[in-house]
């Protein structure tokens, strides 16, 4: 019986392969985007964890020099000779042209067990590892890359970070031409009777790095991706909902017949459920394959973004994991169930002998415009309340959900209202308007999908764009000077500054100290009084003339993180150097720690032992590269000791454009899904609406005119949807920037708007609507007159 029911029901799809294809495609696309984004996020997070666990950095403290330069070999040996269990690591980069490889040279003999030096067991030729020419342990991905020539033999090993090789310290020392360790790993348990390590050495003891810093920094990026995935999935489900609802309605006759022939309701529902399960498994499988392709295609871009933006090394390669596929399939099944719930419920409650009423269904499904509008108002009120009074990330997300669902629900009412404002001048125009109004319920789901896609597009690109603009502004502020120089010692720095002074516009020493403020680590910077800072350092809030107050010595600037965390405002006192008045709050993106800026003189009074080894040079930008070269050749400064800000900025912009490639690609995909939803709805409506169009044709309106009207209507509806999407999208961006970001990361991004982007998006929305309407329009224009005449013969 079940089989017969299943067969009769599924014959529907054989007769309407287009509808079937739409259902599968919608479900597959929804799954693809959602699972693709999940795959990217999971891969990136796994990469952070791996990076954090490299050499046990998540468990081991390390000793390093305050200025980041190598620890003298003698210092290391002196610590060992006192009995301290520290282990040297020599790191650096081997470069040749465009190829590079990071080396992590370790000493397996002294490395604490927590360092989990990789795969140093009997399989490895240990004499080869310890003695010339040495062995480089690399990941399979790294081995496949073009690498600098003249490297020791490579060996593939597990758990090696990307673009890096783990090797014996002797090999690293030889390749990098230095014997001094870059830093020392500290065993957690030290021998008895020794003074604390912090007393025995003037090196900085850095606590184990749980990797949370990089995870925190990149969270906003992943949040973007997740938001995209979720919205795409939601939009995809609109298609599925529409397709399933229609199919159920069209099969009422079949269901009625089955029931009349004695098939129990339970069997019918079981058959329908089974059918849906099969379809969603099929579509899920296609979606997973597509999602993998999408993710694999985007992964190199994402990896490039994360590497450039946050210094997070992530492989540009996606691993396929069965868990991921299974979870994607479960999501697909759950989504299908949610989308089909209404249709199933209606089937279950259907009176046995109710006639099929596809047109009525189309109207009823969008029905209750007034009720929807009221619900939307309630949601907006709730969202507003959450935005004003809510606390925490959950409230921010709740506000976001209220906005999106509310906007979608308000759409039909607003659209009907908008159409009412138009005063038609002819009978035909009046008919068009009336007909359009009548269609809104049938199209409302598709239009809601379009609205969500457009809003998401506007919202997310506003957020990303704001982030980009702010970040670049922040770079400008942080890298206002043309060159940044790090000298080997404070004396060298003083000599260099003296020598350079006549040749450049200005030299600005940079000094900083690590302190604890409010019992948390923070940095204090001392800066010179110079227009470089006055002009370029944008303050979020400030007392009158903050820079002059700062220079007088009794004032301080704090970063936004510190200000928000400790609820400090301009005019409050900061417990530093005996109490300093806060005269300004500045933005400091991506820094998890508190930070304060004092004048150079106040700094040297407070920290008399700290002298500048770094300084910034102001010089005409075109002379900067030549000076950088001279600093390296004449003063023998190493490559990394001289930074040219123009290069750093150019690189950052390149990285951001990669970010835009990723978000841009996702934008287009989301919009594509929405276009597809519109296409589905228009196609279904096209057949249902023949009875309305046939009389018009019969009284003399040409098929071409009717087709043109169809197209114009589709475009108008898309345009109206866009108009509504604009405020929704901006509100979405505001929630993301002002609520979600603040709750999640402790800093607020100023919102910037990008009207030219809206114009492009408007064009895209119209294009999507035109493409969606094209099929039904052409069909109408070419429809055989006989088909139109048949309407009068066949329909009621």
């Amino acid at each position, binding site marked *: 019986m079940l089989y017969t029911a299943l067969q009769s029901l599924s014959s529907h799809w054989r007769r309407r392969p287009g509808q079937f294809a739409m259902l599968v495609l919608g479900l597959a696309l929804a799954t693809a985007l959602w699972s693709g984004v999940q795959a990217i996020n999971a891969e990136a997070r796994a990469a952070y964890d791996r990076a954090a666990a490299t050499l046990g950095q998540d468990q081991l403290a390390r000793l390093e020099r305050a200025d980041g330069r190598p620890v003298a070999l003698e210092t290391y040996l002196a610590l*060992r000779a006192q009995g301290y269990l520290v282990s040297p690591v020599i790191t650096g980069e081997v470069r040749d042209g465009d190829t590079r490889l990071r080396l992590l040279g370790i000493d397996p003999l002294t490395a604490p067990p927590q360092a989990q030096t990789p795969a140093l067991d009997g399989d490895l030729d*240990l004499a080869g590892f*310890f003695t010339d020419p040495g062995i480089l342990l690399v990941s399979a991905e790294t081995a496949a890359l073009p690498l600098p020539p003249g490297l020791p033999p490579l060996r593939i090993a597990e758990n090696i970070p990307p673009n890096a090789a783990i090797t014996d310290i002797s090999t690293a020392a030889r390749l990098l031409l230095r*014997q001094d360790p870059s830093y020392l790993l500290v065993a957690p348990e030290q021998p008895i009777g020794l003074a604390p390590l912090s007393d025995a050495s003037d090196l900085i003891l850095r606590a184990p790095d749980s990797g949370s810093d990089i995870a925190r920094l990149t969270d906003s990026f992943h949040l973007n991706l997740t938001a995209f995935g979720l919205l795409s999935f939601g939009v995809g489900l609109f298609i599925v909902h529409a397709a399933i609802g229609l199919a159920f309605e069209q099969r009422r006759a079949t269901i009625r017949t089955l029931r009349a022939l004695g098939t129990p309701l339970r069997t019918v529902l079981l058959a329908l459920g089974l059918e849906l399960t099969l379809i969603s498994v099929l579509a899920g499988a296609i979606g997973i394959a597509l999602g993998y392709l999408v993710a694999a295609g985007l992964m190199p871009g994402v990896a490039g973004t994360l590497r450039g933006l946050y210094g997070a090394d992530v492989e540009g390669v996606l691993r396929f994991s069965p868990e991921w596929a299974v979870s994607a399939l479960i999501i697909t099944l759950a989504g299908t169930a949610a989308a089909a719930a209404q249709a199933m419920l209606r089937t279950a409650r259907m009176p046995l002998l109710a006639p099929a009423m596809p047109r009525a269904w189309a109207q009823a499904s969008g029905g209750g415009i007034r009720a929807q509008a009221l619900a939307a108002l309630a949601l907006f009120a709730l969202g507003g309340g959450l935005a004003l009074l809510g606390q925490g990330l959950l409230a921010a997300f709740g506000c976001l959900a209220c906005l999106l669902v509310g906007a979608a629900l308000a759409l039909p009412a607003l659209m009907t209202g908008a159409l009412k404002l138009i005063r038609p001048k002819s009978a035909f125009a009046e008919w068009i308007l009336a007909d359009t109004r009548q269609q809104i319920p049938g199209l409302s789901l598709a239009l809601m999908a379009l609205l969500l896609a457009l809003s998401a597009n506007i919202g997310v690109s506003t957020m990303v764009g704001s982030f980009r603009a702010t970040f670049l502004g922040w770079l400008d502020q942080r890298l206002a000077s043309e060159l940044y120089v790090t000298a080997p010692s404070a004396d060298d720095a003083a000599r260099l500054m003296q020598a350079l002074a006549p040749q450049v516009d200005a030299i600005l020493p940079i000094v900083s100290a690590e302190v604890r403020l409010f019992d948390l680590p923070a940095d204090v910077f001392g800066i010179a009084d110079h227009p470089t800072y006055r002009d370029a350092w944008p303050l979020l809030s400030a007392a009158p003339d903050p820079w002059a107050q700062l220079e007088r010595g009794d004032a301080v600037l704090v970063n936004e993180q510190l200000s928000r965390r400790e609820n400090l405002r301009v005019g409050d006192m900061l417990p530093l150097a005996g109490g300093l008045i806060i005269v300004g709050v500045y933005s400091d993106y991506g820094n998890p720690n508190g930070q304060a800026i004092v004048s150079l003189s106040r700094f040297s009074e407070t920290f008399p032992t700290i002298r500048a080894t770094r300084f910034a040079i102001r010089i005409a930008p075109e002379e900067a590269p030549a000076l950088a070269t001279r600093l390296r050749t004449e003063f023998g400064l190493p490559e990394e000791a001289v930074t040219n800000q123009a290069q750093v900025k150019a690189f950052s912009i390149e990285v951001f454009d990669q970010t835009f490639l990723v978000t841009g690609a996702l934008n287009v995909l989301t919009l594509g899904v929405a276009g597809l939803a519109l296409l589905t709805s228009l196609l279904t409506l096209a057949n249902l609406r023949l009875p309305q169009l046939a009389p018009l044709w019969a009284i003399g309106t040409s098929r071409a005119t009717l087709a043109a009207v169809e197209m114009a209507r589709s475009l108008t509806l898309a345009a109206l949807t866009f108009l509504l999407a604009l405020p929704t999208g901006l509100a979405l961006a505001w929630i993301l920037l002002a609520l979600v970001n603040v709750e999640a990361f402790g800093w607020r991004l100023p919102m910037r708007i990008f009207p030219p982007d809206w114009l492009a998006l408007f064009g895209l929305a119209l294009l999507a609507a035109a493409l969606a309407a094209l099929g039904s329009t052409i069909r109408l224009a070419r429809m055989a007159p006989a088909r139109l005449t048949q309407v009068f013969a066949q329909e009621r």
Partner: protein
Amino acid sequence: MLRLLAALLALSTTAHAQGFAGLGAGADGFATPVPNPSFSFPADHGPHPDYRIEWWYLTATLTGDDGRDYGVQWTLFRSALLPTTSDDWTSPQLFMGHAGLTTPDQHFSAERLGRGGVGQAGVSTMPFRAFIDDWHMTSTATTGDAFDTITLAARSTDFAYDLSLGATGPLIFHGQAGFSVKSANGQASYYYSQPFYTVTGTLTLPSGPITVTGNAWLDREWSSQPLSEDQEGWDWFSLQFDSGARLMAFGLRDADGGSFTSATWIEPDGTTTPYGDGAVTLTPLATSTVADRTLPTEWRLQLPARDLDIETTPLNPAAWMDTSFPYWEGPIRFTGTHHGRGYLEMTGYD
């Protein structure tokens, strides 16, 4: 790390039996001991980098001011990957330090690894100093042999010791004037000792410091392949008789159950009598289960040529050195025809 070092010292071995700690490995590229050696001091107190393996091995039987017996072990092993040296990270001369401290109810062990070259570990002769990190054996002698007076220290997370040692007799040479044969196939090592130390110093235990006095025995040995490939391990005794005489005896166990034995009788004045294979008989009397292994911790030791027939009992049967190469090493007492204290080392019990 354990597997790492196991692999290190088992270099260039074939797939079949390779003896304890790779000591049965082939000696390609390295020098091998030859009969009729002539030693030159202080140079020969120092390292011999052209030999694969070498050690400075000190054991002490001590009594604390609390009246209890204690034992201390301090060892620096040198293991060369290649018979060369350098003064940077590339040095193939690897060092391994072992420290043990035995009480009647506890046993502590610790290990340090490091490479020569940069100066984290090594042995110098003028003045004599063998060290890894802060563990050291340092000569304080201004006249005579460098080993006549030394200080010794080691420290780990749960114990430490700091000892001063003075020799009351000369260096003694085992086997044929220091050429000590280890198997019927001719494997041998250079082997000499300073068995006449008296000791004072301090042990630091988790419960606090203890002042100790007692005796100690220093072994120096180097070779490139001291064991033949079918030898699985050894049982080694250093005994101090109440009379002032000393006895060194060892048995190297074959895979087929046989044993190659050797012994040196040392008079209180340092006069030695070597005994070749078969002269001494070592018989296990009772076993203990330590670290999931069964080991013979009580022995009968017979040397008929000296009318010697004694039975040994350990201070603490659980004197297990939980290091990269685990082994048993602890202080013993013995009774029978002779009485006294000593040290027992047992290796190769898997």
